[in-house]
């Protein structure tokens, strides 16, 4: 089963006006390892044609990426107003 299919099972209340995680393209563009793409369980970080593509909408708020990124590119804040992932089982 692909991660995309698994993520499709989840409920999110996405905040369109606030990205709770941001990355700095100036750092990611020259990153030698892109470990975020291997570590993130929700495939939010992907290399597309050699360029890092990040989307916060699929984030399950685990916090892996802020540890994974050893280049200080990731800024991680909690989503606001009960938005973000909504697990039914946990």
């Amino acid at each position, binding site marked *: 089963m692909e991660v995309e299919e698994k993520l499709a099972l989840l409920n999110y209340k996405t905040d369109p006006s606030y990205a709770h995680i941001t990355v700095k393209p100036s750092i990611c563009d020259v990153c030698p*390892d892109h470990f975020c793409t291997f*570590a*993130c369980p929700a495939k939010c970080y992907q290399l597309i044609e050699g360029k890092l593509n990040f989307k916060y909408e699929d984030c399950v708020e*685990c916090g892996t990426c802020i*540890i994974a990124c050893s280049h200080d590119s990731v800024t991680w804040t909690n989503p606001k*107003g*009960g938005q973000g992932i909504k*697990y039914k089982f946990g």
Partner: protein
Amino acid sequence: MSDFDFIVVGAGPAGSSAAIRLATAGSSVLLVERADPPGSKAVSGGILWGRDLDGLIPDWEKSAPVERYIDFKSTSFLTRDSKISIDFRSKKFEEKKTGYSVLRAKLDQFLALKAKAAGATLVTGITVDSLARKENRIVGVVQDGDTITSDAVILAEGANPRVAIESGLREPLRDRDCAIGIKQIVKLSEATVNERFNLTGNSGYAGEFALGYLEGGVRAGGFLYTNKDSLSIGVVIAMENLRANGSTYSYDIMEKFMEHPYVKPLVEGGRVQEYSAHLVPEGGIDSMPKLFGDGYLIAGDSASMTFSNGMIIQGMNYAIASGAMAADSLLEAAKKKDFSGAALSSYQDRLEHSQVLMDLRKFRGIDKVTWSRLVHEVAPGMMENILFSMFYEDGNPKKHLAEIILGSLSKANMKRSELIMETYRMLRRM
């Protein structure tokens, strides 16, 4: 005059336990949770061990939404082709129940509502942005520009404690402090769960696995727990080794576990209901922040209070216990109206005399065993060789067990002296 006597950030097992204790004692408590409803952002390994809820909710075993009590505990080493297990089942657990499988979306909501029923003010869907300070002491929380004040704050944010970190009350997390947890809920019928795991009634299975077949130095443990009519199955991946490997995707390890020849039949035909991920605090006492200061206390996962020796994984029990002890320390401080770090140091004393810090001190460095090359790469292969040699009848004269073991030692991918040292270290630390 403060808005509340106390504010608790986070309505998980630690925060709600603290709030229950504080509110029951008559304090005014604000329990603030960013998820709505509570538990909808929580993920647990899955087993609530121990009896720490006894002192908070006397009838919890009847009233709490637990799934199954554990009477079947298993620890397994998996290689590509084999599974080597130590199983322990006992009827004794039927009378002396000690572990329950739980689903956090249900459990956390139950605990938060208990806090509310005890008199705490529960607000959900509210994210605390930062802590309010006066001089150097914590005097409340800030949410969306508004300050809500209290005599003291308990930080019980869970494994990714943004407020504690951003406030400088704990160091940012590093590779050694956390592992990556990934979990799936697999739906099966209750009858199928019972049949596959040889369970009856409300009894349950809890299995931990060393995944000795991962390639490229990647190290991960697996877990598989039975809920009433589903399975909680997941992996816990060491960040450091995944980083060193540099070409394995965390989510593929979950699939590799599900597809192991002796795991697959257990989940076969099940429908994945949920996929989730969460940090798992590791490192124990070495990852622990200072637990108290002027106007604040830190409890549960936010303070790295988890224990794993590979055979058992605990955290929710420490969260509940530490939350209750944080509350007790605040109630004691309230008598003297002194919420300074010196007064709140009684929290540390309580923890030191409890299972929480006694366990974590005693088993300091256990993570070096559970994540070792011995456990993940060498031992599973060796055991497989030994057992296969014992049980494979090829018509040749049989060997003594000692000969078989010595033979497998020479085939082990580790120097004999190193193997002996590592084994000794493992036994000492366990």
